[in-house]
């Protein structure tokens, strides 16, 4: 049997066994869960091969499975995150209900993501896509009664996306007679002009939902924030990347062949940028860390979409690099929230304060990830941002880059809010009992933040696979051209050399840290956060010295016009209107048998009247 099949089978079998192992013992369940993930990832990492192809023959449809360099790259993200978040999940799920349910869906969605990546034909792609959708849906509604609306919203939007994709798939089949992606690519030139527009648009709609693109993003904040955090790490880190994966393929193979190429690219890129800007503003407004990160995820996905949509080699590099980075740091942050929620019982930024001394390791992970998220050098996030800006500027998207820059700058606001809310500020007595999260949760976070750090100085680790992925889709080789070792440059030849930056920052930081920290640490004394200059007043226990309410009120007041309109509300109003309409139309069935008989007669009469037109 082929490696891919083995991995899929292990996943499905592992999911089922884990789900039913709840009857035996909770620990067995944990071990099975971790075992499944580890086994599959070990098999995967030891047998990486992009040449093999498995064909499953059905009478009408051949399902073709195989890895391409691009999917290999995404599979790295998926498996890496799956392992780390898996360990984390074991820690987080201790003592929770519905463990089997969680593990089952978790494994299933990982398997489905892997399946998507290895699909070489559209039907298996769609099958795994839908498995991914419903398994993630089941995890979104994990938290019970009050997230049902969220779940439905997520599912409906996903269904809109999936069905538009399905429509594209069947149209492709009718035009090319095959479900293979390679046949689509080769046969795309022969299609009529209308179809050439329709198919990419439908496919992009499908991928745009998962990538939380502007008008289709409304599910994301609620869904991300309501799933268990150990899954949201996957959800936002890896699952959303499936949309990006699809977009990359569409942009690399289909859009390039269109006469309206630039128009579509610009539209999608602008949508991405607007998504980024608006969701950043909304992230600033949030008081719940989960929602904050959820909006932030949408924003970050917006950047990635911008990069992918612009589609120059550097932009592609940027988009894919950011995809990896986003997977790394955003899942770390979701894990941080999960750890804090587990330890304190809430994830509200207004309530939890001053955990820095209680949960130092978590804080370190959060700090590094936040710096990476904000795109500040010398961490990995900066590399991606740099490439994005350079590519936008060198490809003449000046207003776009301004908008992206705006959202990126505004992102500092919520970055700070996140750190300040949880870790800094007053240390309240309410949280004095809080302990550091268990090691099984902290270690994955630290590993992930280490990756952020490493990628800041050695981006070639990731750029190399991206390069091979892009050259698979016949983009020019970018090594020596756009990057070389830890040097990245744009097509004008301007470069940023990461090694001196990292050394410079590190040296200066260490110098001043030594100057301040190690020199004064011994001689000075720690005082609590109650000992501050409060005009001489001695703060009492009940006095609230924490500044949390309306954190960025002035800023929000300044940007108020942009936030007045909410897509969410429009869509909900639309849905409400539809429901009312259906409530009205179902009154056709008024319960009176006679009326039904009259309908029948009217039906006959109408048919008779129309018969000349109907049956010519």
């Amino acid at each position, binding site marked *: 049997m082929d490696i891919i099949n083995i991995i899929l089978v292990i996943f499905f079998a592992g999911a089922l066994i884990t789900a039913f192992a709840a009857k035996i013992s909770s620990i067995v369940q944990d071990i099975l869960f971790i075992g499944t993930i580890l086994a599959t990832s070990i098999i995967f990492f030891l047998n990486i091969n992009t040449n093999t192809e498995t064909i499953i023959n059905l009478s009408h449809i051949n399902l073709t499975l195989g890895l391409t360099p691009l999917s290999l790259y995404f599979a790295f993200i998926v498996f890496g995150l799956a392992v780390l978040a898996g360990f984390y999940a074991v820690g987080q799920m201790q003592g929770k209900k519905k463990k089997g349910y969680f593990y089952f869906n978790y494994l299933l969605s990982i398997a489905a993501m892997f399946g998507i990546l290895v699909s070489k034909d559209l039907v298996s792609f769609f099958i795994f896509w839908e498995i991914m959708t419903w398994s993630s849906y089941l995890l979104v509604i994990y938290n019970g009664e009050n997230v049902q609306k969220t779940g439905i919203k997520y599912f409906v939007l996903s269904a809109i996306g999936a069905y538009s994709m399905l429509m594209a798939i069947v149209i492709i089949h009718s035009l090319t007679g095959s479900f293979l992606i390679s046949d689509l690519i080769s046969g795309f030139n022969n299609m009529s002009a209308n179809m050439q527009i329709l198919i990419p648009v439908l496919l992009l709609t499908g991928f745009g939902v998962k990538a939380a693109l502007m008008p289709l993003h409304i599910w994301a904040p609620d869904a991300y924030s309501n799933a268990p955090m150990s899954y949201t790490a996957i959800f936002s880190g890896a699952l959303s990347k499936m949309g990006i994966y699809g977009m990359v393929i569409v942009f690399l193979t289909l859009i390039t062949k269109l006469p309206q190429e630039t128009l579509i690219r610009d539209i999608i890129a602008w949508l991405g940028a607007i998504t980024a800007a608006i969701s950043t503003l909304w992230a600033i407004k949030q008081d719940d860390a989960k929602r904050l990160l959820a909006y932030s995820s949408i924003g970050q996905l917006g950047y990635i979409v911008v990069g992918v949509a612009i589609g120059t080699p550097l932009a592609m590099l940027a988009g894919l690099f950011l995809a990896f980075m986003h997977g790394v740091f955003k899942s770390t942050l979701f894990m941080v929230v999960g750890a804090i929620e587990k330890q304190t019982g809430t994830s509200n930024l207004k309530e939890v304060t001053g955990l820095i001394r209680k949960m130092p390791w978590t804080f370190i992970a959060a700090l590094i990830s936040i710096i990476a998220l904000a795109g500040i050098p010398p961490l990995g996030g900066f590399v991606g941002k740099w490439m994005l800006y350079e590519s936008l500027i060198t490809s003449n998207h000046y207003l776009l880059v301004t908008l992206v820059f705006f959202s990126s700058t505004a992102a500092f606001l919520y970055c700070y809010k996140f750190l300040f809310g949880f870790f800094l500020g007053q240390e309240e007595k309410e949280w004095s009992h809080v302990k550091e999260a268990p090691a099984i949760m902290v270690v994955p976070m630290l590993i992930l933040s280490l990756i952020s750090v490493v990628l800041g100085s050695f981006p070639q680790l990731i750029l190399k696979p991206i390069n091979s992925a892009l050259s698979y889709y016949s983009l020019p080789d970018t090594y020596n051209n756009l990057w070389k070792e830890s040097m990245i440059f744009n097509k004008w030849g301007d470069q940023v050399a990461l090694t001196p930056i990292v050394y410079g920052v590190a040296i200066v930081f260490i110098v001043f840290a030594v100057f301040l920290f190690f020199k004064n640490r011994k001689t000075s*004394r720690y*005082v609590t956060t109650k*000992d501050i*200059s409060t*005009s*001489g*007043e*001695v703060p009492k226990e009940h006095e609230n010295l924490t500044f949390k309410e309306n954190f960025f009120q002035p800023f929000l007041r300044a940007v108020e016009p942009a936030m007045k309109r909410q897509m969410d509300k429009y869509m909900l109003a639309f849905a409400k209107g539809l429901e009312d309409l259906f409530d009205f139309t179902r009154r056709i069935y008024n319960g009176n048998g006679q009326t039904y008989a009259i309908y029948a007669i009217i039906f006959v009469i109408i048919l008779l009247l129309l018969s000349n037109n109907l049956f010519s």
Partner: protein
Amino acid sequence: MYNDKNKQKIVDIIKNAARKHSLWVLAYGTGCGAIEVPATMTSRYDAERLGVRGAATPRQADVLLITGYLTVKTLKRVIRVYEQMQDPKYVIGFGSCTINGGMYFDSYNTINQLDLYLPVDVYISGCMPRPEAVLEGFGKLQELIGKGIANGAQQYKENLDFYRENQKKVIKNWDFQDYNW
């Protein structure tokens, strides 16, 4: 390093020279004296030319300027502010009220003599002292700093028990953290 009153190391001389020309004042605006401070700082008298400058919080301040009578309630806060200031720090008692209670000498809720509670380096007498007097007071303080004998903080640390006793005598609801450096 302030123990030897008459002997200063060369480092201390430099430090004190800098300190005396850079006095960041935390004006604790009690009583009627607070109105004199703006006059001192603004264009007619311009204390800034001497390096005297307002500071916003006790952490940044060098000089605690107490501008008038202190009720018991206020005293409590003043003590806390003083203890929050970082070494080296100085206290200027401003106006008669801080010296002997002034016109409030027999009030039931004001203290009469500030240096029972805080180590005052310089008193400026008057009710109220005019800006010229205030500047004179600052000059005096600079002189003391230059000589290295403006060591009220040192006294406070050494005689903490004495000060605490006095403070606790008037402040009934004592809820301070320990001042242990």
